[in-house]
């Protein structure tokens, strides 16, 4: 058969659901915890789909809970509603333990932190890894990232640290190792790693208006990201907080630059910040999984 177009062939993926696997007497290697943002937020659904493509591409025997998944309770706990948190946690732990789940991967640092650190006290003990660490492992095993950066080669990328990945759980290098395979022009914001500035959405702020103040936190962070990508040293001269990195020397055209994130809330906040600065036609916000799936050429 002669090809009619140059478009890559597409193959449908059906995501294995835990209930079906259990009925068939099978067990997955790893459970993919999708999270509410990954399941409902239109923007973050694209991250979920990209990550599932990667799982499919490398042939991981995975499964999701599907309709049996429920909020981990993170926003309730951070907002002080410990009762609601524990109700959610116990419900999820019951589901996970019924399926005898041992290992969980998730693309949400909040779900990651909650299941890893706060479920054990309630009887949920699992090996939990964030997708940045999972992708780092796949890269180290040579399963992805071998074909280079693809369309991202040489582009300017800055990584925004998620609080619940970084300070909360000391994961700073995994996302950077993942980005390194893109062969891009990686630049660090002055406030990065342990000194990274929050996007403003943690602690249940995602669901409420900010208290009165001078500025929204995501605008402050987006300005820093844009000035870093643009190499505007003057705009970076008087940031508040602790700065570790030196300002990027020399001005750069923002066109085609990327803010990389690893958290659904950071995704929303940074995207809104970039829009507020009217730079959305020039600067895009991507999750690590999207960047890797696109570079691999498997994002259909």
């Amino acid at each position, binding site marked *: 058969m002669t*090809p009619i*177009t140059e*478009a*890559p*062939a*597409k*193959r449908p*993926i059906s*995501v294995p659901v835990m209930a079906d696997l259990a009925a068939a007497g099978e067990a997955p290697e790893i459970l993919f915890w999708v999270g*509410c943002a990954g*399941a*409902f937020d239109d923007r973050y659904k694209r991250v979920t*789909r990209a990550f*599932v*493509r990667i799982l499919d*591409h490398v042939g991981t025997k995975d499964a999701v809970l*599907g*309709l049996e998944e*429920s*909020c981990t309770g993170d926003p*309730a706990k*951070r*907002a*002080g509603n*410990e*009762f609601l948190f*524990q*109700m959610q946690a*116990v419900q999820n732990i019951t589901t996970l333990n019924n399926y005898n789940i041992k290992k969980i991967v998730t693309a949400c640092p909040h779900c990651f*932190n909650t299941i890893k*650190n*706060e479920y054990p006290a309630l009887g949920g003990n699992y090996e939990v890894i964030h997708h940045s660490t999972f992708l780092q492992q796949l890269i180290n095993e040579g399963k992805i990232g071998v074909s280079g950066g693809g369309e991202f080669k040489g582009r300017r990328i800055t990584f925004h640290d998620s*609080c619940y990945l970084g*300070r*909360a*759980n000391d994961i700073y290098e995994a996302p950077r190792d993942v980005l390194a395979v893109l062969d891009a022009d990686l630049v660090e914001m002055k406030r990065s790693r*342990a*000194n990274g*500035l*929050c996007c*403003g*959405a943690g*602690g*249940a*702020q995602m*669901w*409420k208006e*900010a*208290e*009165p*103040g001078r*500025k929204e*936190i995501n605008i*402050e*962070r987006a300005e820093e990201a844009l000035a870093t990508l643009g190499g505007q040293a003057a705009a970076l001269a008087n940031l*508040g*907080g*602790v700065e570790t990195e030196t300002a990027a020397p020399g001005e750069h055209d923002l066109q085609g630059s990327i803010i990389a994130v690893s958290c659904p809330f950071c995704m929303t906040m940074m995207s809104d910040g970039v829009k507020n600065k009217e730079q959305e036609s020039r600067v895009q916000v991507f999750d690590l999984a999207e960047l890797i799936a696109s570079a691999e050429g498997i*994002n*259909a």
Partner: protein
Amino acid sequence: MVQTVIFALLLLAAFGLFAWQVRKIRANILVGRDRDVSGNAAERLRKTFLVAFGQSKMFKRTTPALLHLVVYVGFLVINIEVLEIVIDGLFGTHRVLSFLGPVYDGLMATNEILAALVLVAVAAFWWRRNHQPPVRRFTGPELRMWPRLDANIILYIEVVLMFALFFMNTADLKLHEIEGKELAGTFPVSNLLVGLLPAASVGTLEVLERAGWWFHITGIFLFLNYLPSSKHFHIIMAFPGVWYSRLVPQGQFSNVESITNEVKAMMDPSFVVPAPALGPDGAALPPQSFGVKDVEDLPWTNLLAAYSCTECGRCTSVCPANLTGKLLSPRKIIMDTRDRVEEKYHSPLIFQPNVYGAEARHEPITDLANATLLRGKVTPEELWACTTCNACVESCPVNINPLESIIEMRRFLVLEESAAPASLNAMFSNIENNGAPWAFSPSDRFNWADDLYVAEKGVLV
């Protein structure tokens, strides 16, 4: 002989008064709730060594870290000299440690050089606080009145103590010079100052040297008793504070055991809820409230931590809410905790709690007697501005955790008063009804997997 007796009495009075103040503070700390801190001695020791003794977290900011290191090492070394002064004072000896010979030379020389460097560091500290505009973290509604004065008093006392040390040594050198004797020890700074003293009689110089000696040690005794009223208490409290700081990942928030029991009882009818704790009289204690309303609801480790706070404001300077002009200042919450426990229970010699006005958008407190930490000092507006990002926790050089207190007070607002912002109540109902914080139908949870394709690498259609 008279001097020895006076000195012994002074020493006794100084340590007696200090012990009396420490007992009050210990009692203040113990009003807090129980927290199990047993075990993990090796890890606690390692952390105390690194963070408290080694000041590892100070070195996030090099300039203040180096200046502080000078004062810190100066303080450690000068304690050896203080020990010598105490022995001399009690037994009427003079420079009793001089038998150490070359070691004594080194000790005295180190002491003098550090004392000179301390003066430089203190001058720099004073400038950073008092020039206009000061370093941002030395500003804010919680850093006015007494806390601001306290910070400067500490610097002035340090200057006076260092000058007393030089005065004592210089007079001693001059005395020995006139008497044609060799003074044990090496004094690089005082040697430069000897020429400034007039060629007075031996008697006058003896009086001057004694005056310097008495002034130095009396100053130290006074400073010791000033500590419990001051942020400078951190020179002692930082060590137990770091020792008892949390060992779990910063993202892990505490579990509320009483709620776990309730939830288990709801889920499993056969679950037996543990009997309530018994008081000393054998009767069951009333159930604890959820979260924190006042200081005695906090774990005692948080009260201990409040006493180790140096009010340096690193927490506030990295707080995203504070950076963008919100009311929240993590330092204020820690300072409020200490003020509140001293206001309600025992106060040290000098006690000037912060009173906030319009600048802190504080609701007027009318009923002082019944004011609590929550609302009386910390407003809900501050608590709701927190993003739980852990920047304050990460930045604290002595491992204080303001976030834990913030969450505990949020728990009280939500669980005891149902006083969450309306938008958060909507989020709670969404989780209860839809299993997600947004108003989506749970039956749509798996829709993301519809029409999902993967591009086949290298295969073209």
